[in-house]
């Protein structure tokens, strides 16, 4: 988890501009403002992530590994961090569609990106199960 989170941020804010370019000057300005806001959000998230990973007591050792303690608002925030890593890695891999295209060439960099993509998805799944589980 820590190795994965240290990759943040991966997503490039302006990525989707090419696919859905703004048609008017007003829309272009709005798009740029949104991209600036997202970039600022990534900077803030990165600062918070560094603090969180250094905080004593976040990870406690157990028989089978470590327990990572998070509050509900922190889980919500972590979703954004994890999916930035997942989607950003997928974009860097060339946006492969498993139904349409062969997988990317197995270079060392691509293997790292594919690992990050899959691990981020796994942790998202685990967190979704945790917050949707009935209270004990």
């Amino acid at each position, binding site marked *: 988890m820590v190795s994965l989170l240290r990759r943040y941020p991966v997503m490039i804010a302006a990525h989707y501009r090419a696919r859905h370019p703004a048609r008017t000057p007003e829309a272009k300005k*709005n798009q740029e403002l*949104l991209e600036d806001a997202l970039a600022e959000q990534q900077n803030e998230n990165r600062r918070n992530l560094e603090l969180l990973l250094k905080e004593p007591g976040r990870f406690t050792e157990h028989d089978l590994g470590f327990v990572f303690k998070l509050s509900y608002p922190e889980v919500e925030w972590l979703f954004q961090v994890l*999916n930035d890593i*997942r989607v*950003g890695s997928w974009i860097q891999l060339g*946006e492969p569609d498993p139904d349409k295209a062969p997988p990317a060439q197995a270079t060392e960099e691509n293997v790292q990106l594919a690992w990050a993509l899959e691990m981020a998805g796994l942790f998202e*799944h685990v967190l979704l199960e945790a917050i949707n589980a009935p209270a004990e």
Partner: protein
Amino acid sequence: MVICWDDPVNLMDYVTHVFQKVFGWPKGKAEYHMRQVHETGKSVLIRESLEKAEHYVHQLQRYSLHATMERDH
């Protein structure tokens, strides 16, 4: 209006969760729009003023969903 576009990378349960969180929708409505995105390539999520639409697009992009604004014709 705010449009969410399909991609093969976002988990279906994750998209449903984000719609619930951003719009405050019940799970059924969030799942309906998630399926529409998945099956038709996009879904019009909400029709709102420019200011509110910007807010929603920003929220969706914070979760790395592909969302855009378009003028309603």
